[in-house]
């Protein structure tokens, strides 16, 4: 052994954190998001904080907002309506969730499915039908007046908005809360019983805290949805809320008026704060406790009295939340329906009209929603892959940027697009903002977070070793994505597409601002236009039924395909 010291090998430079292809992909996605999400929103914020015409920083616009009694009332109304919608949604959702998960409840699956139904109809579609049932001269009040001589103001002013919104959005709470209740391991409850707890104390100390995160997640979603919704208050002719005010300022006074932008900023802040609060409350509280092979909470058998009460409550709630669907269906076949509990006579003329001269709306919707859904899943898969499977520096920013779209109300995005892209013209002088593709891009951005979550979840379920095995056997990264990752994600990708497609198909908040000509209008816009006049209510309702069937068919289809693909992979049993 000679004692010549062997120099320690110099540390090899770490490999580049990603391949050139991945970097190019990330940059392309970032550019897309910057252009169609960040830039429009930044423009809105910029305009709100600058002096009209000069571009100097100012807070005077906000001072004007605070000084104007109408705006402050709108702000308060928006808060009040959102909060009350959460309250009423909870009133609908809690009994359904609790009864179907905690008791041996006949038809629990049916109740859960029916409870999901309102989601496939956007609230503004059901609003008109709700007027007919619950309005001052609607079926219920006519009967009440006949029999008891009094009426209830279900639909007066803000009440109407609250009623319609909570009937439509309560499934968010129902779904999240049911999932949370189902995810509680029965051993949690049994351990408490074993230690001497039972009845209401057990519920209060164990079941309720464990289910709380699910409830909060649903409740915050309802709050934000209601706060940002533009179409429902407009259709119910309630103008003193924030979203309608933003819309009305921009459409009636003009794109240069700063107040629309100030209101937009207030809307964004409210959304962000609500989401931040719920995220903060939920942090570190993933309480899914079911073990492999363990069951959910033990289901109790109801006593006869409990059963009567339980089924009564469930049927009452279901009747209430399914009323808009029934109303819409009746309205679409009605000749005249006014000042009577039920329509005078029935006709199919409205459908003839919808499929005849108005079929353009349906065609446009299918095209727009398909492209938007396609963009969303491509972006969703790419972002999910970059975030979960590469070490690209700053990859989380793509995720955050894409998810930030959740906090941007549709009306704000619409205003941002108008302002940003109206100045940009094509060679022939057409402003970019007036092209139908702008609507598609807005829809794609709005629905991207949903598709992204679906793709994210699908990719997370794929064990990394499945990809490593492919690489080990000679497949490059790109080949591995094509042969292993994408096929295994197929169910999730499809689910993401269908979610994006079906919600984009009935989106109105953003499109209301962006539709420039009737020939470019999607279904939701046509519906809104129809509903403006009493004569258009029939065709409008027919269009609404078409929309509901479209969304329902999509939802059903995606369930079917996911189930089948899982069965094929042997994961379904």
């Amino acid at each position, binding site marked *: 052994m000679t004692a010549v010291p062997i120099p320690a090998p110099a540390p090899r430079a770490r490999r580049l954190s990603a391949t050139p292809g991945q970097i190019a992909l990330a940059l392309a996605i970032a550019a897309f998001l910057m252009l169609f999400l960040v830039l429009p929103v930044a423009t809105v914020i910029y305009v709100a904080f600058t002096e009209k015409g000069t571009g100097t920083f100012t807070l005077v616009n906000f001072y004007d907002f605070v000084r104007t009694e109408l705006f402050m009332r709108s702000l308060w109304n928006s808060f009040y309506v959102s909060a009350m919608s959460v309250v009423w949604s909870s009133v609908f959702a809690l009994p359904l969730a609790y009864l179907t998960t905690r008791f041996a409840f006949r038809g629990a699956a049916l109740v859960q499915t029916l409870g999901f139904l309102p989601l496939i109809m956007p609230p503004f579609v059901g609003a008109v039908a709700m007027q007919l049932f619950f309005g001052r001269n609607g079926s219920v009040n006519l009967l009440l007046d006949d029999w008891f001589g009094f009426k209830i103001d279900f639909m007066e002013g803000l009440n109407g908005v609250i009623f319609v919104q909570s009937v439509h959005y309560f499934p968010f709470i129902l779904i999240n809360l049911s999932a949370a209740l189902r995810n509680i391991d029965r051993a949690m409850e049994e351990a408490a019983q074993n230690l001497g707890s039972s009845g209401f104390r057990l519920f209060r100390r164990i079941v309720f805290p464990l289910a709380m995160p699910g409830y909060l997640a649903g409740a915050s979603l309802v709050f934000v949805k209601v706060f940002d919704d533009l179409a429902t208050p407009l259709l119910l002719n309630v103008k003193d809320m924030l979203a309608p005010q933003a819309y009305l300022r921009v459409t009636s006074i003009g794109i240069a008026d700063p107040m629309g932008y100030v209101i937009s900023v207030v809307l964004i802040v409210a959304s962000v704060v609500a989401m931040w609060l719920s995220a903060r409350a939920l942090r570190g509280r993933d309480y899914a406790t079911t073990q492999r092979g363990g069951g959910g909470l033990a289901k109790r058998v109801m006593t006869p009295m409990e059963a009567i009460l339980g089924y009564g409550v469930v049927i009452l709630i279901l009747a209430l939340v399914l009323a808009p669907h029934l109303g819409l269906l009746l309205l679409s076949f009605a000749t005249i329906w006014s000042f009577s509990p039920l329509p005078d006579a029935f006709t199919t003329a409205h459908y003839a009209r919808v499929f005849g001269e108005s079929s353009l709306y349906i065609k446009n919707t299918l095209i727009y929603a398909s492209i938007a859904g396609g963009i969303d899943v491509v972006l969703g898969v790419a972002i999910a892959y970059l975030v979960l499977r590469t070490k690209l520096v700053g990859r989380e920013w793509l995720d955050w940027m894409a998810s930030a779209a959740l906090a941007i109300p549709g009306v704000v995005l619409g205003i941002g697009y108008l302002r940003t892209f109206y100045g940009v013209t094509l060679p022939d002088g057409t402003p970019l903002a007036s092209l139908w593709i702008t609507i598609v891009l807005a829809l794609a951005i709005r629905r991207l977070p949903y598709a992204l979550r679906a793709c994210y979840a699908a990719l997370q379920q794929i064990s990394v070793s499945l990809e490593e095995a492919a690489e080990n056997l000679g497949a490059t990264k790109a080949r591995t994505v094509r*042969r292993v990752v994408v096929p295994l994600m197929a169910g999730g990708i499809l689910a993401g597409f269908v979610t994006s497609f079906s919600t984009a198909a009935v989106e109105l908040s953003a499109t209301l601002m962006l539709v420039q000509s009737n020939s470019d209008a999607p279904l939701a816009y046509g519906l809104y236009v129809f509903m403006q006049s009493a004569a258009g209510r029939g065709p409008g309702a027919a269009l609404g039924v078409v929309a509901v069937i479209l969304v329902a068919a999509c939802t059903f289809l995606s369930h079917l395909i996911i189930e089948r693909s899982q069965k094929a992979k042997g994961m379904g049993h």
Partner: protein
Amino acid sequence: MNAIASLATPAVSVDIEGVNLSYGDNHVLKDVNLAIQPGEFFAFLGPSGCGKTTLLRLIAGFNQADTGRVLIGGSDISPLPPWKRDVGMVFQSYALWPHMTVRRNVAFGLEERGVSRAEVERRVGVALDLVGLGHLGDRRPSQLSGGQQQRVAVARTVAVEPKVLLLDEPLSNLDAKMRVQVRRELRDLQQRLGLTTIFVTHDQEEANTICDRIAVMNDGTVQQVGTPMELYERPANLFVANFLGTANILEGRVKGTGADRIFEIEGGISVPVPPGAVIPEGAKLVFRPQHAELGLREPSDTASIALPGIVSHREFLGASVRYGVRVGATEVAVDQPFHSGEGLHDIGAAVSLTLPKTSMIWL
């Protein structure tokens, strides 16, 4: 036999030279050097967190070393991405693709190599026959039992005729009975293919039964390399002695010099040190439970030493009886073969523990 020969490739060596790897402040592999011979069945053995799987993944290309290199058949593969390395890995979870049939799983690597369709089918057939699953090619992985899935994973890997076979705890997802069967099959398969194979395990019995040589790892360093017998009989340090089988450790001090050296055990008992024994500074006396013998009297021969002890504990194990014997301040384990009709030592009995000088290990 012909079919198997078609999957066999000339065996190559694997050399790991000066490998260091850190995750942030966590130094996972510390200057690892190993030379694995062509055709050898080699094990990385150690407790969880010792770096054995990290080292295996480094060879497969899923980890990057900070320094050092890995040579296969003498050429440095460190710069190659996983898909160019030609080292077949069987994953702990098997990593069978659920969207493909067994046959398509096995065909995957061959397809990626651009092998002709007819040749792919032929070699898939050979590989599946090799693991005895030729009849299950059209099943989905989820329709197979754990043992069958494991065999598909092996078939998928050997079908591409890799230069080296890497097995990441391949038996850990099987029940105890299957484990014994499958480890024999693995050994048999490796012998027939003559493939250099590296096997990662935390189970010393698995490593002992099927591997030619073992690298015992702890805390990111290789503690000792050797055949199972060498490691057991001549452990290099206390970690190896403890990790492979049960070791009795008596602490004490060496006193005197030359032929008069004695080892004074804590508790005041001293034994003569065999002449010529090399005892490092601060060493402990180590011996295996079955190497000592319990008797009532001290032995008269000079090939053994005797330690006085008190029986404090007794477990009947069937073929043998394990006694806990208090020697000084330490309780040691002593295994005695059980012969029916023979009396057992009672708890509390004073006994003499006889230990052959050849069985004394100084660590």
